[in-house]
C-alpha cells in the first residue's frame, strides 16, 4: 500500500482544476506529469509482485514484468529487443472482453500461443513514416506492428507466448498499396 500511496497522492495533487483543464504553467504541468509517472511506476511494482505470486512457480527466479507506456507511438523495448517474450493481459472489467493488441516488433513473422496452447492468428503492418518521425521514438528499432485479438476473462488475466519465427506461422503479411 506504500507503493500505491505514491500514485494516490499524485492523483490528489492533480485534483486542482488547472491539472484537469490544462490551465497550469508549463513548469507545473511538468511537475504533475512527473508525480503521476513516478506514481505509475510504483504501482507497476505492485502489479509485478502480484503476478509473481499468481504465476506458476518457475525453475529460475521469475523475471520482472516490463511495462510499455509508449505503445501509442509504437515503441516498447520489451517487444522490440526480445525475439521471445510473454505478454500478460489483465482485464479490469467484470465480464470477459476481447481486445486488439498492437505490438511494435522488428520481425515479420511470429508464433503466438494462447494459454490453452492454441495458435493465435496475427497480421504484421509496416510502421508509418509519420510514426517514425515522432521525436519521442528516438532509439526504437521496430519496423512493424504485430496485430492480433485476445480474449481475457472477467477481472482476470491471460498470458500469451510470442516468439519470432522464420518458419511457417499464422502471421499474415499486409498488402500495402499507394493510392496516389
Amino acid at each position, binding site marked *: 500500500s506504500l507503493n500505491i500511496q505514491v500514485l494516490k497522492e499524485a492523483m490528489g495533487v492533480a485534483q486542482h482544476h488547472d491539472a484537469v483543464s*490544462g*490551465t*497550469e*504553467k*508549463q513548469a507545473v*504541468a511538468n511537475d504533475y506529469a512527473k508525480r503521476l509517472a513516478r506514481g505509475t511506476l510504483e504501482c*507497476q511494482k505492485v502489479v*509485478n509482485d502480484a*503476478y509473481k505470486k499468481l504465476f506458476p512457480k*518457475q525453475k529460475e527466479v521469475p*523475471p*520482472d514484468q*516490463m*511495462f*510499455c507506456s509508449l*505503445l*501509442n*507511438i509504437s515503441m*516498447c523495448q*520489451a517487444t522490440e529487443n*526480445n525475439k*521471445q*517474450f*510473454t*505478454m*500478460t*493481459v*489483465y*482485464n*479490469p*472489467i467484470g465480464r470477459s*472482453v476481447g*481486445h*486488439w493488441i498492437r505490438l511494435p516488433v522488428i520481425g515479420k513473422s511470429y508464433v503466438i*500461443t*494462447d494459454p490453452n*496452447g492454441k495458435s493465435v492468428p*496475427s*497480421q504484421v*503492418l*509496416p510502421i*508509418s513514416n*509519420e*510514426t517514425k518521425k*515522432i*521525436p*519521442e521514438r528516438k532509439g526504437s528499432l521496430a519496423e512493424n506492428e504485430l*496485430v*492480433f485479438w*485476445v480474449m481475457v476473462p472477467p477481472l482476470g488475466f491471460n*498470458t500469451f*507466448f510470442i516468439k519470432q519465427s522464420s518458419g511457417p506461422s499464422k502471421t*499474415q*503479411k*499486409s*498488402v*500495402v498499396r*499507394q*493510392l*496516389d
Partner: protein
Amino acid sequence: NADIVIKNQHLSLMFDGNSGQLKSMKNLNSGASIPLQQTFQFYIGHPGNTTVFEYQASGAYVFRPLTSAPADFQPLLKKRTFHVQGQLVQEIRQWFSPWVSQVVRLYDQANYAELEWTVGPIPVSDGLGKEVITKYSTGLQTNGVFYTDANGREILKRTRNHRDTWKFKTSEPIAANYYPINSRVYIKDSNSQFTVMTDRSQGGTSLQDGNLEVMLHRRLLYDDNLGVGEALNETGADGKGLIARGKHFLFLDTVQNSGALHRDMGLRLYMAPSLSFTNSQMKQQEWS
C-alpha cells in the same frame, strides 16, 4: 482512381480514389448509411487587442478564434495515401499536411471505425497561433442540435446559438457554441445516429446541421491574461512544439441501437486491459 471500400462484417467505409478522403459510411446490419466527409482545419488564435476591456487573447483559459471560419490547409502538391490490407485489420493512411496525418482502421468484427489522428508540431513561424480541428460532415438533418456527455454519464442536449437559462447573445459565434466533450459526442436525425467517441476529453461543436467538429491540438502565442501568465505554447522534446496523437471511434447505427453501442465501448475504452511483458523463455506447455 476508383473509390476504395474497406469493410468488415458490420461496417463499410468508402474513400475517394483521388483524394483518399472519407466519402461515406454504412452500417451493414441496420442499413444506416450516410455521406461522410472529414476535413482537418485550423482557427487562428486571437492575439488579443489593445483596448483594456477587450484584451482577450485565445489561450489556456479561453478559446477565441480570430476569424469566424476555420482556415483550410494548403493543398498538398504530393499526396501520400496508402491502403494496407489484411484479414485482421485494414487501414487507409492519409496525409493532410506536413504536420497532420491520420490512419483509418477497420478491425475484423469491429462495429466501429478507429481513426488515429496525429497533429503537430504546429508551425508558428508565421507568428500566428493555431487551433486544429477535425470536422465530420454527415448530411444528417440535425436542426442545430447535438449531444455531449458529462464524464461519460449524463448526456446533455446542446442547441446551437441557444442557452436554456438566458437569452442567447454573443460576440463569439464560434467559441460560444463550443462545449466540453468528455468522451463522446453525437448527432442524430429521426433514423440514424452518428457517434464520435474520443480517447481524451476534448472540445467540440456542431456549427452547421449534420456537422461535428472536435478540437485536437492548440498552439498559441499570447497569454490570455486570466492567470497562467504564459502562452499555451509547449515546445516538446526537441523544442519544435508538441506532436499530439489520439483516437476517435466512429459509430453509425439507428438511434435505438446507438446507446448500447457507445456505452459498451465506453467501458471497453476507458477500462481497457493493461499489458505487461517478460523476457521469459518458458514455453506454454511448461507454463500450463
